[in-house]
């Protein structure tokens, strides 16, 4: 088998890319995509640990499925919100959405 750490590193790399995307992308849709990346990185982490440490129990797998479902739901809701915001504010640039300022 390949050492577990390769998968974890891979997940970490994905997570970092996702984190960078969340923090630095201008477009809200791109932020959402980055959030997906984050979630998927977490998923990989989960599955790796499951496969390498407790393959006989189904906890990790179930958890990963959970995360996938939540990610999907959250993507749907998030896109709906972005569309609503776009319709009200005419912009999807995160920097410009600061109504809750102060």
């Amino acid at each position: 088998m390949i050492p577990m750490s390769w998968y974890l590193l891979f997940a970490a790399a994905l997570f970092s890319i996702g984190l960078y995307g969340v923090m630095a992308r201008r477009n809200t849709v791109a932020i959402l995509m980055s959030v997906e990346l984050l979630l998927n990185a977490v998923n990989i982490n989960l599955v790796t640990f499951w496969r390498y440490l407790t393959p006989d129990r189904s906890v990790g797998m179930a958890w990963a499925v959970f995360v996938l479902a939540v990610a999907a739901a959250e993507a749907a809701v998030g896109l709906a919100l972005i569309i609503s915001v776009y319709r009200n504010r005419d912009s999807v640039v995160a920097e410009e959405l600061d109504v809750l300022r102060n």
Partner: protein
Amino acid sequence: MSEELLTTLTWLIPVGPLLAFFVITLFTNRSRTLSWMLAWAGVFSSLILGWTVALNVFAEDVHHLEEHPTVIADSIAWLPFGSNADNWLRMGVAVDPLTAVMLIMVTFAITMIFIYSVGYHNWGQPLGKVLGVPNHMQEEPLLSRFFAFMSLFAGAMLLLVVADNLLMLFVGWEIMGFCSYSLIGFWYARDYDIGEDDIPHISPRKAGIKAFMTTRVADVIMLLGIVFFYRVFGTFNFAEALSAHSLEHAVAGVGATALGIMSLLLFTGTVGKSAQWPLHVWLPDAMEGPTPVSATIHAAAMVSAGVYMSIRIFPLLAVGAGPESGVPVGWIIAGIGAFTALMAATIAVAQNDVKGVLAYSTISQLGFMIAAIGTGAYVAAVFHLITHGFFKALLFLASGSVIHGMEHGAHHVHDHHTDPQDMRYMGGLRKKMPITFWTFLIGGMALSGLPFITAGFWSKDEIFASAWYAYNHEGNAIGLMVLVALALAAFLTAFYTMRQISMTFFGKARTPLAEHAQESSNFMTFPLIGLAFFAVIAGWAGIPEDFPILGPLLDNNYAHHIIGATVHSTLHHLSEMGLVGHSYAIAAFDFVWLPLIASLTVALGGLFFGWLMYGRKPLVQGQADPLIKALGPLHTFLNRKWYWDELYDTVLIQPTIFVSETVVYEWIDKGFIDGIIHLVARAFYGFGRYVRAFEMAVFGDGVDWVKDQFLAMAASMRQLQTGRMQEYVLVSTLIASALAFVVLAINYGWFDQIFQ
């Protein structure tokens, strides 16, 4: 008569007039006629009862009386005090010879005055309209009130006379003072419009206040004497407290000097009530009251009460003046009496008001009595008191009749400005008012001491004789002083009396008022005659036994024995104990020529000089009083009454007003005491303001500052809220990383390696 009956009658003596007072005040005050009739009923009952009781006393054997002077005595427990009911203060009546002679004089004089008053106030004439001022020639509208007060006054006087104890005497004393105030100020709405040459008059209401307050000065001091009396003797009863035994006990207890002080305290009451110097100033102004009031108050009753009280406590005064006492009580009493007698006589010489002369004459005669007491001449003082009551009342009533006559004349000629009381405007009234003239003459002669015929002579002679006896036999210098001073005063008395009679009755009328005067009604003349009778005969009871010719004829100095019996045995015992001077132990003394010659000389001399100046060639209209030129500035001094009123006003009255209105009320109460309170109040307010400032600073501003800090902190924290989601993510990531690093560091022991 049985003793029980007499006792009951004695209790009833004051009841008639007192009852009359209540009934008149409450029920009959609307009917003037009913009121005076009731008043008459009251005093007539007193007259009958009083004389009955008195004559029963006189019927007793004199020697028996000397041993047991108190013939009637009865008392009831009055004031609860302590647990033993026997010790309660008692009130009661007692009659001894002194009481008896007083009853004879007082009841008779007051009855005469009541009869007179009905005529004086013009009952039967058209009713006067104005209240509170004299309505000349018209019936007095306030007649009921007059008789109510007079009845109360009579009741109080009789209460005083029959009282067996000092406290009840004081009650009667004070009530008389109140009546005097009310009656002097009877015409309370009257004001005077005094011209330059007129006789000065103060308003009746001021005169009433003056009388009340002057006597009150004396009364409050007397009250101290009264409480002292009870404290020492344990009883107010005269017979018990002033017995020889009791006095001896008291001297052993508190000492004769203390008794001397007590005597002086009580004597002060007499000084006030009997208008002696220095408290004499109220009596002349009391003339503002209606003349019957003057007669009652200033002859028969109130001023007599003052002397009567001193006579009642005579054994005490005797011990106080005695050899064991350190206080010169005898000198003080006799000195005041003699000085007053002389001073008042000099003033009377220069007075123009017919009542004014009589007022000062009263003061002077009272001085005679008091000087007699000071010498130890008990009988002389009493004797003179009685005779004086009769002839002075007579003189006052007669002067009232004169004034009435003058007012009648004034009414006739429609002159309401000339003072009808001013003797300078009289003259020739002998023809116009004969009864008044003759009775006035009798009274005047009694006052002057016209030898042998008049009562005044005998009583005055007795005083001279006693004074001379005290000096001659006992070496008591008081006697000499008294004799000389009183002789001079007697001379002046005769002089001014003759002056008064001449100016009023002799010669021709000096003004139309006197021209048209007429004799007064029967109501007024009848009492004059009644009193004149006594003014003559009352003295005959006191003719000494060894007086040339007349003495052996009567052979019984009745008055001396019976009056002397009251204190005879007490003074005798006290004298034996050495507590009183020998001149005080009353035994009738032998007749001596010197005092008789003295009294004859002064009386006849005074009358002669008076006649010489005023009677031989009576004054005519416009002619000035010859005395003015003769005496010069001294006359003004005498006419203005030695300026005592002005002195008292400056030294006493005005300062008192100043002290009351300004010093006590403004300065002390409002300024000082309230000043302190207001200061305290301001201090509290100030303290409160300080506390408020403190609270405002600490709890107000302080709390506000804390709030501001929080707000500033929040304001700075607010910078974090940019509203940009990505920045939130960045921040939270950084913090989470830091935290994770810290946790991991701790977990893996990295810190321990660094901080070794």
